Each structure stands twice: as structure tokens, then as C-alpha cells.
């Protein structure tokens, strides 16, 4: 789960990290009032879960409260990568002597959180990695010991030759690590970490992603979710415990298991089709999940055919069949549907489908070919 910049900054502030002062506004008047309160120049920043806000015009410097109001007026309601801006962060503009990057992510290879730092702050770290990889330093943290002082100092000296700044950066790195662990994060970064002309360090932009699997443990973080910043299909999928990713094609796929779902998409492509989505209904699915899955898929106007591919293990295929029938009864389909199911309670599933006038295949290849060939036919199977 992504949280907004202003929320991430609040978490970092609670961990003791010096953060650029700022407050959230949902109206131009609020933005003006905040700017008034700070006095000097402010930066008005769109709060959306999308990169490239700056390029999209979602970040503006304002020298006066009136300018802040005007900036907020332009940014609020703006659409960035399909997401409508509902909030802006009005932050005190920082004087910048230099900018660094510090971030933590999980690394599959070392099986540890990895701290990355770079003196090339303010840039996309991907870009730095591609163009000047020697300007990034990494450290895999042994979680049994945590990020040690000496490790933080080693990284900090890579950023700052000055020992006072290095100590401040080391402290921030350890606070960031603690925040990362404490909040069950999968990503935490400060970019840029600004050095002011006076030599102080301050976090000017921040990003935290929380591992969805941790949310049950952290109701306070779960409460930070901003559903207004998500596509409605994502919200519905999450609530129904489905993994759903919207794609650009027209073959709507409903599959149990991520590997099989990907293999199904690959096979759709193989036969010349284009998957409209990745949708994994997971194991031990109940009929309600299937109903939700069908609702999400059929909401996508691009979908021209629906393809079920179910290999029943823990998933009972009769549950899936019951869900399909229930969903169609609630709202009849306007596109054809191809159903492949095999495995647990297969005979019962076939019986249920037949009762609703539906048939099922048992071979995956065959089903995918049939679905692809139906694209453009536009009639129910």
C-alpha cells in the first residue's frame, strides 16, 4: 500500500527525522492560510500515488500566500496519470546547498532490507543507477542486529565528508531503518535529503510503501489508505481479496493462482490475443469472490470475451461454478464467456454450469484458443 507524501513525512517526523515543515490543504483557501502562517516561500505539491508529479505540473513554488492559493487552484482537481488530485501539501521552501538520496527496500537476493544512499539526490534513483552506478552505495542489513551505528556511519561518510553532517545522516539512516521495520514497510525513501546552507539536513520529499500483509498488524497505517486515490476496480478487488491488475487488452481473465494467471495471459498472447487484466482469485475461493471478480472484469468496457481458467486444488471448482452462475443471474453477460475448469469437484461444477446453460472445457490450451477466436464475435458462448 502506498501512502501520500504528507503521511510518509508525518511517520518520519514521529521517528525523529528532521522533516521540512508542511501541512495539507484540500482547498485553495486552506493553502493560502498555511502559506500565510509560514511567512516565506512555500512549495505546493499534489498528493497522488504517481511518479513524475513535477513534470506533470503538480509541484509549484509560491513566493506569497496569494501565489500559494493560485498554485493550489491549478493543482487541485488536476489529473495526473489518471488520478485526480484531491489534496496538496503546502511546505516551507527549503534553502538547498546539496541534495542526497537515502532509501530502504527489501532485497530478494540477500533476503534482507537494503539501505541505498547516493549523493545524487533529487534525481530518480533508477536514473542514477543506470548512468552513474558508482554514485550509489548499498548495505544489506542483518535484521537480527538492525542497522548498526558503524554501518550507518560508513554510508553517511559516502554522502558527507564533514563529520557533523555524517553523524546527522547516520542518525537519520537509523531512524529511517527503525521506521521501515516498525511500520512493516516495503519501501521507505527520502529524496531529496537536503543539506541547507547552514549545514543542517532535512527531508524534503519522502515515500513509504507498506507491505499489504502487515496492515492487519498496523490498523493505524491501514487507516491511512486513501481510496479516493485508487481506481475503483483496485479498491473493489482489494476488498474482495483478489489480486487485480488492469492491462490494455480485451480478453478478461479470471484464474486461480498467480503463476497460472500469468501463464494464461502468456497463452492468450501466444494465440494472438491481448489480456485485459491479471486477476488471481487465490486459493480457497468462495462463490462471492467469483461474483466480485466478474463484476470487476465486466466493468471494463474494453473486454470482449471472458476467460475462466481454474485448476482446482484447494479451490473447489464447484464453488467457482456456483459463483459464475450467481453473477450471471445478477446481471447477464454482454460478452461471451469461456470456462476451463478441472480438478476438485469437477463433475459437480460441470453439472452446476449445465444447469445455467453453460459448458466447460478441461484443457487450458483449447480454452485459451477458443477465447481468443471469440474476440470480435461478440456473442455469448
Amino acid at each position, binding site marked *: 500500500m502506498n501512502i501520500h507524501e504528507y503521511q510518509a513525512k508525518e511517520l518520519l517526523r514521529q521517528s525523529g527525522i528532521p522533516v521540512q515543515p508542511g501541512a495539507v490543504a484540500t482547498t485553495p483557501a486552506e493553502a493560502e492560510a498555511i502559506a500565510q502562517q509560514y511567512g516565506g516561500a512555500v512549495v505546493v505539491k499534489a498528493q497522488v500515488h504517481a511518479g513524475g508529479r513535477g513534470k506533470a505540473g503538480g509541484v509549484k513554488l509560491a513566493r506569497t500566500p496569494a501565489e500559494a492559493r493560485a498554485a493550489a487552484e491549478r493543482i487541485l482537481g488536476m489529473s495526473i496519470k489518471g488520478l485526480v488530485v484531491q489534496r496538496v501539501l503546502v511546505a516551507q521552501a527549503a534553502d538547498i546547498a546539496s541534495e542526497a538520496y537515502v532509501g530502504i527496500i527489501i532485497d530478494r537476493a540477500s533476503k534482507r532490507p*537494503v539501505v541505498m544512499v547516493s549523493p545524487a539526490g533529487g534525481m530518480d534513483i533508477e536514473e542514477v543507477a543506470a548512468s552513474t552506478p558508482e554514485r550509489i552505495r548499498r548495505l544489506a542489513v542483518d535484521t537480527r542486529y538492525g542497522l548498526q551505528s558503524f554501518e550507518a556511519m560508513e554510508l553517511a561518510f559516502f554522502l558527507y565528508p564533514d563529520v557533523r553532517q555524517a553523524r546527522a545522516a547516520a542518525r537519520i539512516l537509523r531512524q529511517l531503518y527503525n521506521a521501515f521495520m516498525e511500520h512493516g514497510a516495503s519501501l521507505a525513501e527520502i529524496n531529496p535529503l537536503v543539506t541547507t546552507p547552514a549545514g543542517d539536513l532535512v527531508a524534503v520529499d519522502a515515500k513509504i510503501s507498506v507491505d499489504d*500483509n502487515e496492515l492487519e498488524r498496523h490498523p493505524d497505517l491501514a487507516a491511512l489508505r486513501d481510496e479516493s486515490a485508487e481506481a475503483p476496480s483496485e479498491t473493489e478487488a482489494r476488498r474482495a481479496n483478489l489480486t487485480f*491488475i488492469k492491462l490494455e487488452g480485451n480478453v478478461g481473465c479470471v484464474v486461480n493462482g498467480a503463476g497460472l494467471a500469468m501463464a494464461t*495471459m502468456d497463452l492468450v498472447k501466444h494465440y494472438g490475443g491481448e489480456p485485459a487484466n491479471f486477476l488471481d482469485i487465490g486459493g480457497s475461493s468462495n462463490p462471492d469472490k467469483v461474483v466480485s471478480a466478474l463484476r470487476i472484469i465486466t466493468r471494463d468496457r474494453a473486454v470482449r470475451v471472458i476467460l475462466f481458467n481454474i485448476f482446482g486444488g484447494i479451490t473447489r471448482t464447484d464453488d467457482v461454478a456456483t459463483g459464475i452462475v450467481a453473477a450471471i443471474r445478477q446481471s447477464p453477460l454482454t460478452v461471451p464467456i469461456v470456462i476451463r475448469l478441472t480438478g476438485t469437484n469437477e463433475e459437480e461444477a460441470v453439472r452446476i454450469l449445465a444447469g445455467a446453460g453453460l459448458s466447460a472445457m478441461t484443457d487450458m*490450451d483449447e480454452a485459451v484458443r477458443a477465447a481468443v477466436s471469440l474476440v470480435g464475435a461478440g456473442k455469448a458462448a
Partner: protein
Amino acid sequence: MSIFIDGRTRLLVQGITGRDGSFHTRQMAEYGTRVVAGVTPGKGGQTFDAGAVRVPIFNTVADAAEATGANVSVIYVPPLFAADAMMEAAEAGIPLVVCITEGVPVLDMTRVYPFIRDHGARLIGPNCPGLITPGVCKVGIIPGRICTPGSVGLVSRSGTLTYEVVNQLTRVGLGQTTCVGIGGDPINGTNFIDCLAAFEADPATTAVVMIGEIGGTDEQDAARFVAERMTKPVIGFIAGRTAPPGRRMGHAGAIISGSTGTAAEKVQAMTDAGIPVADRPADVVPLLRERLDASVRR
């Protein structure tokens, strides 16, 4: 013969009285697996009716292991309790721990992984279907009826995709020594190389099918291992060739590993290592047949 589990397997089930644990305990017992103990805190002293057998329940893994000599544990507990369960099993001296639970926080695994290693145990999973030695023993949730005994080893990061491939093998009479689902989580206990090495060492296994997917560099590492260390034929399949980049791992993971973990990269690495990679699941069987025939001819 087989890898990891066999006729001497004495299975303990953590979370035996839960919804999934109770269902699959019966399935495993029915398949012929020796289920010797269950753990559910607070139900110690009771027994669990697994159909064929009544399984004694204990409050802790330590008690269960001591009383029954269990040597494999399979875990069906809720995600936020899974890390503790895995460590409890390792601490109790169980040498093989199989965690079926899906949704284990990845930071939990950063602690579990070194703990398991410190204790000299093997972990399979989490978020995996477990493993099966057809006709002998099954630990986890792989449907028994899609498998049949034979000489092909199978290792996969996926669940249902594994069933798909195993099913095809079985349908054409290519039986399996052991099928292992290692799970698709970012941090898991056993990787491809561990399983490939075990299959290479298992006299009963004559060929191996490995089923990978996008993300990470495990398949690339495995490809190198196959090229350098394996004498037995290996056939591959990679799911996610058409997956949009960056949706599973985020960019930063790629920076670290120096790899984007794409299917193309993995297929290339495997091809370079001399591993034929199937385009479709349905191509696995013909490719395997071809390699097995070639082996026989050699």
C-alpha cells in the same frame, strides 16, 4: 527414491484444528502420509480425527516432537503467526519445515530466514503448495490424484501452474519422483538450486522440470547451476512473459539485483545454459520426451 520426503517421513501439522489444517490433514493422511502429531495451543491432550488415524494434539512443537519423533512439520496457521510457527519448528529440532501459509509479511521472513539457517533446518515456502512424493507421502496441498510415481523431478515457484504441468506429465505416463512447490514470495527458504542439487543426487530422478516466473534472479542462478553442475536433463517454463514490467517488484528491487527479473532475461539465461524452455505449458511434455529420448540414445 525421492527428495526431502519419503516413507520415513513422520509428519507434524501446525494448526491442525484450523480450517485449512484440518481439511488437508485428512487429505494427507488419506494419501498415506504418516501424520504423527498436531499442534494447537490449548488443545494439547486432545486428538484429531484424520479419518484413517487419530492424531494426538500438543500445545507446543517441542512437546509434539519429543513425544512422537516427528521429522517434518507442515504449517497452516494465519499469516501473522506463521513466522513464529516456522521458528518454533526449527527450534524444536524439526529438520524440514514446510509453510503453506500465504500472506506472510516479508519483514518477518528477514528474521525467519537466518533463524532457520542458524538452526540447520530446511524451510520450504512460505506461500507454497508443499511437496509430494507420489504414491508415498504428501506434505501440503498438491492434489494427490494428479500425480503418479515415476522418475521426473519437478520444482516450481507456482501452485496451480505446477498442477497444470504435473497433470500433463501424469496424463502421458511420465511419473514423478517428487514435486516441490517452493513458493513465489520474495524471501523463501528453499530455492531452485537447492532442489536441483537434491534431484541431481537422487538416483531415482532421471530428468527435472523447473517452472519459474518473473521477479528476482533465482532462475538465472539456477541456470548457471544446471550448466556447471548437473548431468541430468532439465526442462524449463517461465510464466509472465507478457506481464507489464515493474508491477510486481517495483523499480528499486531491480536496481539492487542488477536485473529487472523479466521473463525474457530468465528464458535467455536458461537457453544459454542448455535448458530447453517451453513456450506453453503444453510444450513441456514434448520437450521432456525429446531430452529423455536423447539421454537414452547417448
